[in-house]
């Protein structure tokens, strides 16, 4: 499939789970296809990175389910200014979660149960920013004899999942060759339809040779519905070991939250070009481009 063929199967108002984590291995070529489409009013579920800010700034987003949104989370956490602007304006409806609750919500959807119990979230202010908040009394006595009241993390069903892997086969199996799968398999399993973009697509039976290790073949075609070949498709986020993050591009993107002209030119010159091929050509032609 092409990015645009995937996007033709999506609709306004739907719930879309986006793979990767922070500014790492995001399915950005599919996100760009959303940016240039007529889609709107999307509900995004994500371990959020720049895709959240881009979709918000472009007016595509009406609801967000998240535990964090950040260009990166490390020793020095950086904030995501486009996302912050949308959140602070009150325009973006949000369901906030602990990261572990997001995991459990996706897992519950994948396993077709209405919720999973956890103590995560108890005592925090999450009920103030989470409409699906509920608790459940354990049917079993706790160690002290009293039944515990736990959080019932509601299943988070996705209408569609979009993920970007290092390599996929033509039938929809896929593998990560970088440090972490993140939650990409689970997003696919929690979704009615899942679309995989990959740095390269190989023929059926050749995935192991391409990925190097059977333990890396983690996205199963039982749970996927389409494959897109998208070299450098995660740009500007990282896709180790295929390419690092384009820090220059990301810095410009971050700066554009305070500079409408810069945001407009990022859209016109890159993000909203009429095809992914045009985008990749424009990125490759950047004099200060950092695309490996």
């Amino acid at each position, binding site marked *: 499939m092409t990015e645009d063929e995937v996007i033709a199967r999506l609709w306004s108002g739907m719930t879309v789970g986006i793979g990767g984590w922070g500014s790492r291995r995001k399915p950005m070529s599919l996100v760009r296809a959303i940016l240039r489409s007529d889609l709107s009013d999307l509900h995004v579920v994500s371990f959020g990175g720049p895709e959240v800010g881009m979709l918000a700034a472009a007016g595509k987003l009406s609801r967000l389910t998240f535990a964090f949104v950040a260009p990166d989370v490390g020793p020095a956490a950086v*904030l995501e200014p486009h996302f912050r602007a949308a959140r*602070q304006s*009150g325009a973006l409806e949000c369901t906030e979660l*602990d*990261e572990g609750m997001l995991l459990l919500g996706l897992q519950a959807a994948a396993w077709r149960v209405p919720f999973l119990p956890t103590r995560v979230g108890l005592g*925090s*202010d999450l009920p*103030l920013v989470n409409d699906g908040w509920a608790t459940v009394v354990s049917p079993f006595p706790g160690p002290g004899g009293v039944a515990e009241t736990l959080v019932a993390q509601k299943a988070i069903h996705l209408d569609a999942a979009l993920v970007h892997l290092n390599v996929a086969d033509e039938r929809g199996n896929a593998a990560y060759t970088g440090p*972490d799968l993140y*939650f990409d398999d689970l997003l696919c399993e929690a979704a009615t339809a899942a679309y995989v973009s990959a740095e390269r697509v190989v023929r059926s039976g050749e995935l192991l040779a391409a990925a190097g290790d059977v333990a890396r073949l983690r996205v199963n075609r039982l749970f996927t519905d389409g494959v897109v070949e998208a070299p450098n498709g995660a740009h500007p986020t990282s896709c180790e070991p295929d390419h690092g993050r384009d820090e220059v591009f990301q810095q410009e993107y971050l700066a554009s939250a305070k500079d409408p002209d810069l945001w407009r030119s990022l859209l016109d010159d890159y993000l909203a070009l009429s095809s992914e091929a045009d985008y990749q050509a424009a990125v490759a032609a950047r004099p200060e481009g950092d695309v490996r």
Partner: protein
Amino acid sequence: MSEITDLSALVRRADVCAVAVAECFRGDGEILANPIGTIPMIGGRLARATWEPDLMMTDSEATLITNDEAVVAVDDRRYEVYNPYRRMFDVVWSGRRHVMMGATQIDRYGNQNIAALGGTPRKPRTQLLGFRGAPGNTINNTTSYWVPGHGPKVFVEAVDVVSGIGYDRAAQLGDVARFHEIRRVVSNLGVFDFDTPDHRMRLRSIHPGVTTDEITTATGFELVIDDQPATTRLPTPDELELLDTIDPNGTRYREVPDPQ
């Protein structure tokens, strides 16, 4: 007089902080020590290199490594085990972890905020990171906090949003919160704990060169302060040497500069 006085004149605040962080992990044994931030990473490594050799520590990404250095290039990492992002929840929810987080705000019971400031919860004046893993960390494993810039806007009467839960919230929950422990708060001015009858924050020790007044002025709530608050101990010569191995580029001095 003293050699001690001379030494405390020479001591650098960031080194005192790193040792105070390391002390937070004393007695933890074989757990995942997960200090987040520059000096926390350095202090955690110091604890492992000295009195807590069984601690496991991350490379800040997807593996647990044994290197002493706080920041290690990929090719130089000495791996113990794979610990991708999702695996961390297994560790946290099992309780075999002690995390040291930052705090944009913290109150007297150790409630922490990293989510948002001002406005209303649904329309904050300043959106921060989000709740991240703070609720799950604080109710499942031991937590400490690191505040490099101690001030009244950080140590507040009441946090705007509770992301990491403090002792008052945990007490309301009862037995289900039995794994909750806020061990310590280390700042650039002192060390704080909750070893009081109702778990209010107590001044545990003052860093050398800091006064009690300085700390109370920089704190937006009333701390429990003993008659003779202790002084945070100085690094030993061995520890100073180790700190230079762990942090050869002196990044700790940029996070906590020496006082003017």
